[in-house]
């Protein structure tokens, strides 16, 4: 009898323990005063404000911010999993430029109010606008800017800054043939997202077009860019290791001194002046990105933004936080504490003029040329499209496909995706 009693008690204890996890918080009442004054913020490490900054926000608004620091790669996955179950992963979330199309199609983001003044000052806002709705506000500016190592160019006997992509190609050939630099051009070729964007900015700066109005690839422009990449690969002007190393490792060859030319992230402005990250400090100059006949009249932005999730129960508080976080004052502070490049051109200009961003070169001038290569905004099938693009480029880099074949492979997939839209 006693044994039975013990068994029954154990069974009951186990059942209760198992069911405990299924319960909800006792004080989780929607709209309770405490909850309304507290929001959650999911962001990668570089976007997390300091405790002092957050305290300041709480003092100003009475809203407490609980920060959930998550690796950039994991944010999208967590957002997808939570949203699929109709839950908010956080009230405020990081929104990368490449996610905005699918997040909009899936209806996961709450539209935000932005004044015309801000819109005019923040060109990257266009990337996060779909059908006239602003879905997220960019906080970290990243657009494609070119860099070259002046000392290595001079050593190879090149005194002029390259104006066109043809100039860059010739300069790289000279750099290689004179033995100055073995692989002078740094570009991502691995099967990853950065490789897709490399093709996009190359075609965009060459011909001002990447996609047609119907979302398909512009054959002439993209094939020309692919052939340019193919030439770089065949003449070994790029490092063969770039075919498998990460895109960032390929970019870092510039600051490591093993490459002389890069079109890459704006973060390389500060990287090129930091002795801890750059072995050729003082040799790198940021310049306007080359084009076909002269300097390109456009550049592509790849910014990161903050958005408010549709499933958030604290939307108003979350919107206040986004507004505060992307304000001019905070952009200045975040540049100082988190090295974030401001998305407001007025702030960027102020920081450059105050010498807070050193060795800026053509950074500000290039910022004014930002425009989107997507005629109808970022498509909802971006991830699948990008996968087709970077795999085709990588196959071309590995010698499995020619430029024409690579185009055909990616075009078939993108036409199918655009048709399904």
């Amino acid at each position, binding site marked *: 009898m006693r044994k039975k009693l013990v068994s029954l008690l154990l069974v009951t204890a*186990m*059942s209760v323990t198992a069911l405990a996890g299924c319960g909800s918080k006792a004080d989780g009442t929607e709209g309770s005063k405490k909850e309304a004054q507290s929001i959650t913020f999911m962001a990668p490490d570089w976007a997390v404000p300091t405790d002092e900054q957050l305290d300041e926000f709480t003092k100003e608004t009475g809203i407490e911010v609980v920060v959930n620091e998550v690796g950039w790669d994991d944010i999208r996955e967590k957002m997808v999993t939570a949203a699929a179950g109709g839950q908010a992963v956080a009230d405020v979330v990081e929104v990368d430029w490449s996610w905005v199309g*699918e997040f909009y199609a899936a209806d996961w983001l709450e539209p935000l109010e932005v004044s015309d003044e801000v819109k005019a000052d923040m060109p990257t806002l266009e990337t996060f606008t779909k059908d006239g709705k602003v879905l997220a506000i960019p906080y970290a500016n990243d657009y494609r800017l070119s860099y070259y190592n002046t000392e290595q160019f001079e050593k190879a006997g090149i005194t002029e800054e390259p104006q066109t992509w043809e100039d860059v190609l010739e300069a790289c050939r000279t750099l290689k043939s004179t033995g100055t630099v073995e692989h002078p051009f740094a570009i991502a070729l691995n*099967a990853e997202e950065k490789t897709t964007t490399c093709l996009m900015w190359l075609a965009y700066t060459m011909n001002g077009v990447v996609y047609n109005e119907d979302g398909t690839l512009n054959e002439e422009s993209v094939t020309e860019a692919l052939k340019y990449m193919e030439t770089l690969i065949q003449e070994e002007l790029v490092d063969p290791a770039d*075919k498998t190393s990460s895109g960032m490792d390929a970019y870092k060859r510039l600051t490591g001194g093993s490459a002389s030319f890069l079109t890459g992230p704006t973060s390389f402005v500060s990287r090129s002046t930091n002795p801890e990250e750059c072995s050729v400090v003082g040799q790198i100059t940021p310049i306007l990105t080359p084009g076909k006949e002269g300097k390109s009249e456009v550049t592509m932005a790849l910014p990161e933004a903050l958005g408010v999730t549709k499933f958030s129960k604290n939307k108003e508080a979350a919107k206040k936080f986004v507004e505060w976080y992307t304000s001019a004052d905070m952009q200045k502070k975040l540049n100082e504490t988190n090295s974030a490049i401001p998305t407001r051109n007025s702030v960027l200009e102020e920081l450059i003029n105050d010498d807070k961003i050193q060795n800026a070169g053509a950074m500000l001038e290039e910022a004014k040329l930002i425009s989107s290569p997507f005629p109808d905004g970022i498509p909802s099938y971006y991830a699948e499209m990008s996968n087709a693009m970077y795999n085709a480029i*990588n196959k071309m880099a590995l010698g499995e496909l020619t430029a024409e074949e690579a185009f055909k492979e990616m075009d078939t997939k993108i036409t199918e995706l655009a048709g399904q839209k």
Partner: protein
Amino acid sequence: MKKKILPYLLLTPMILIMGVLVFYPIAATFSYSLKYWKLTAPNDIHFIGFDNYINILKSESFWYSLQNTVFLLVLILFGTTILGVLLSLFLNIEVKFSGVLLAVAVLPWALPPYVNGILWRFIFYPGYGLMNKLLIGMGMVDQPVEWLNSRWTLLFVVSIVVIWRSIPFMALVCLAGRQSIPHELYEAAKIDGANVPNIFRRITFPLMLPFIGIGVTSTSVTAINVFDEIVALSGYSDLGKNILVESYLTTFSFLDFGKGSAVTYLVMFLAAILGIFYLRSLNKEVEY
């Protein structure tokens, strides 16, 4: 009556746990796989029968991934089984530092798979990774080998990495099997004049077989589910993707939950076939 109810009552918690955590997800995933369900089209979720399965089986990408999966399965299974059994026999030898050796042998098993992949990525780095430095140093090659740039060398490297991680479990299971064989059998065999190969063939191997079976089952599941090592070594590229990477890409990258669930079901189906096969072989009686 009481006697009849009590066993069911005692089983209830486990049935509940299995139901919620195992059977419900299996049934739910199957129902998802029969739908057109893209997260980017939330208002267009509808029943499409077996269309997802048909589309997957028609796609080149799936068959390419399946080939890679089978290649990895065969290589990992052979490598792990042979090396694991050999290691278990080696660890069975009584030496002064047996305990330390056992602890060292188990180390790779304790390493998270992604970390394991990163570690080996440095070794097989296409430029001047450790392996290339060794080969060049020994004069075996002139130029660095681009290990991760071709499909088969990449899969070979992935296999090595997974084998390295799987050997300890196989060795431990086989060691347990080896140590459970009574000494008397060996003594009797020696008295009968049996030599070492015969003892191994007639006593050690047959009696270790059920344990090898457990190791093989576990290794097969590991080999089908390789994910972290592939991602660490080659990212989400087409080159080395297996069915699991295909499933992940479809579900979480392309946000196609319907098709992704169908791919997952196919992976489960493949694992189930192997599971049944091994369970059957486990139930066979050992003769010696």
